[in-house]
């Protein structure tokens, strides 16, 4: 659909300029933080300043002087474990919901969806009391369990929607060939759905990585805190061992895994989002 009229170059320039301005507006905060983080701590002690030439000192000091390593470890481990556990149970559940018509199917599905509507903090209140009683406060296992409250519904929903688009015949022919149901799932369903599962797993991972409310309520010890909690703690501090440079470095570095994942899955994001968010 390329019409080449002479007067249209104005529109082209206009749109490109507009787009660049918009991207600049979206990126200005990140750029400022990036610049601040690439400055020596002394130069940005009072908030705004910058070093030339850029220096990695703030980033290095961040890892040396603050529990960033601990926070990163906790965030990544908890997210990974949450996804692994949630994925295993969710694939089975989604398969059941997608493939079989059984009494109570709608009820099960709706009740799982309803979990999305519960604010994390509301859930945090009873979980706090329960974990307190069972000694699960300040534990990674506790957090992993708590995170599954939103990870499982998400995965079940997305996977169910995806599986419904895959033709039943493939599974049925495997059954005819003598596979029992479990073998069908392992050898047929999962390989077929692999790219979708991969993308959804990444989203689920990010969901756990980003989680703040539950972590805030269920964990108070430094050594078990995650990246978002740490971000809040160190934002207010401008004592002499943590400067704006380091806080900026913190924000930049915690953004690295999500951005990495974004680059990995950019193709699937649009498909995944639209498929999962509705057949609208």
């Amino acid at each position: 659909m390329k019409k080449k009229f002479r007067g249209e170059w104005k529109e082209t320039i206009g749109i490109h300029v507009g787009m660049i301005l918009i991207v600049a507006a979206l990126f200005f905060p990140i750029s400022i933080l990036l610049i601040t983080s690439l400055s020596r701590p002394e130069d940005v002690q009072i908030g705004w300043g910058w070093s030339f030439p850029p220096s990695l000192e703030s980033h290095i000091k961040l890892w040396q002087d603050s529990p960033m390593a601990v926070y990163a470890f906790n965030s990544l481990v908890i997210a990974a474990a949450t996804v692994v556990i949630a994925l295993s149970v969710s694939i089975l559940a989604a398969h059941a919901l997608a493939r079989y018509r059984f009494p109570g199917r709608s009820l099960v599905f709706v009740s799982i969806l309803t979990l999305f509507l519960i604010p994390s903090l509301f859930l945090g209140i009873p979980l706090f009391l329960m974990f307190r009683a069972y000694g699960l406060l300040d534990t990674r296992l506790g957090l992993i369990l708590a995170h599954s409250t939103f990870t499982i519904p998400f995965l079940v929903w997305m996977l169910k929607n995806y599986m419904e688009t895959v033709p039943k015949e493939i599974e049925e022919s495997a059954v005819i060939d003598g596979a029992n149901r479990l073998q069908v799932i392992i050898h047929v369903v999962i390989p077929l759905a692999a790219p979708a599962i991969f993308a959804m797993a990444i989203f689920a991972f990010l969901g756990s990585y980003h989680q703040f409310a539950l972590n805030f309520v269920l964990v108070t010890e430094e050594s078990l805190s995650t990246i978002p909690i740490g971000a809040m703690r160190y934002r207010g501090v401008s004592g002499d061992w943590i400067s704006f440079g380091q806080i900026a470095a913190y924000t930049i570095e915690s953004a690295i895994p999500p951005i990495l994942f974004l680059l990995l899955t950019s193709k699937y994001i649009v498909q995944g989002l639209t498929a999962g968010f509705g057949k609208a």
Partner: protein
Amino acid sequence: MKKILAAMWKERIAYLELTPAFLLLLFVAFGPVVYGIILGLTDFNLLRPTQTSFVGLKNFFAQLLNSRYHHALWNTLFYTVCITGFSFIAGLGISLMLNAQKLRAKSFFRILILIPWVITPVVVAVGWSILMRNEYGFINYVLIKWGFSNINFLGDLEHTLKWILVPMVWRSVPFVIIMLYARLKGIQGVLYEAATVDGATKWQQFLYITLPELKAVSAVLVLYMCLMNAKVFDVIWVLTMGGPGDSTQVAMTYVYDVAFQRWQLGNAAAASYVPMMILFVIGAFYIRLVEKD
């Protein structure tokens, strides 16, 4: 009855496959939710846990008469409507631009644009709060340099509520862009060509082709954003902790305050009733739209 049992037996494998997920959710989700609701009917206070008694809906009504609670609910409404509204309008505009044929390198822009949305919301809040610091933040630095007086973004009793919209809209717009753009791409070019042949102006084409085609996605999008924004806690807490005073208190930050700063867990749970009811109503519409079973 016999038919149902027969059907259950026939598809018994389904129940088997559902069991692990359901069992886990029973303990960490469904159970606690019920527990939470019951908690709202007691006057449980963590500072005197053994003196708890069942008070029925007394807590709930007490909250309804509490002006701080009203304020929080009102703020929640304001916040939800504004963020959803601004994000949607801005997102619509940008996605239309993104869809313009004359734009090259679309996938490049697409990835770039998504970055604000994938960053952890709390980190977005922290980053912006550094930029918006009263004396030392970058924004005020620039303002002062250009001769304006500085703006106390996060500490102003009257205006902070409006200022915290900025970071949140900033991070929501990309999501809107992606969703709308995906739909825009799918609108057949033939429709526009036919309209042009029939003499329709670009504006008319927008009104009568583009907008209707976007109706379904937009409805889902708007409902989803309302849901996500109404239950917000983390970003507001990190930005302002509900302060200064109570000016940016939202439903869930209020609940947090009552639950974990005053330890009135019963009251806090009761205070969650109204937000949850609203969320359920919105959610019901949302699920209806999304799962046309």
